[in-house]
């Protein structure tokens, strides 16, 4: 079989779409989860502290912690995971500070996003990049 110039172009375009598609899907899922959490409020940067390692050797247990003074709820998203939601916290009246830590799984090198809903309804956002040596999705 001979490839014409047109065939080659179509195949190239198809390959490009196939390569970028999953990334696009993950990004959309992150957007959806953010929008759901924000409930129509505008999301502004800053006001939340997210602590994550710069390099995680093992994607199966990556320690993350969030500190959001004045927040009532916090949502952590991993933008590069097949399912972006990691954990959501709701702080009650007996919380000593709006801070929490946990350990999560990361599929690969990616940005982690922390969203915090303040008592007045505004939504703050911050992100951190984590380089993952071995992914934690067991693929």
């Amino acid at each position, binding site marked *: 079989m001979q490839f014409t110039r047109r065939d080659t172009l179509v195949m190239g375009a198809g390959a490009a779409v196939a390569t970028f598609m999953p990334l696009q899907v993950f990004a959309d899922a992150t957007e959806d989860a953010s929008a759901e959490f924000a409930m129509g409020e505008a999301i502004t940067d800053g006001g939340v502290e997210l602590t994550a390692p710069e390099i995680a050797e093992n994607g199966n247990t990556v320690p993350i912690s969030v500190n959001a003074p004045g927040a009532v709820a916090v949502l952590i998203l991993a933008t590069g995971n097949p399912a972006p939601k990691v954990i959501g916290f709701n*702080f009650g009246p007996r919380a000593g500070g709006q801070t929490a830590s946990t350990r999560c799984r990361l599929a690969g090198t990616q940005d982690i996003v922390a969203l915090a809903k303040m008592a007045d309804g505004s939504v703050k956002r911050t992100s951190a990049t984590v380089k993952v040596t071995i992914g934690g999705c067991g693929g």
Partner: protein
Amino acid sequence: MADNVKPRVRVPRSAVAGEAFEIKTLISHKMESGARKDSDGNTIPRSIIHHFSCDFNGENVIQAALEGAISTNPYIQFEASIEESGTFTFTWQDDDGSEYTDSKDITVG
């Protein structure tokens, strides 16, 4: 039901009224994310702890909605601040409907 689920909680024995202190919780659980496949290519069904909450004398301290991206043996650390002596109760809810609880007493002063 997941086997050998054992909650472990670390709470200080005493606290100063109104001052924040740390609480650490760990529960042994495999946290099967539902994204993995076994050697035959079949998806392993999701089996995780999806909800955690901590209360003090009936008042909420923190609630957490856990997803498949939380590591095996989920560890959660947070802060509480109390005015009087009492009991912390910790509740974990499993996907299979079971509930694991633990409680710790604390004195103020």
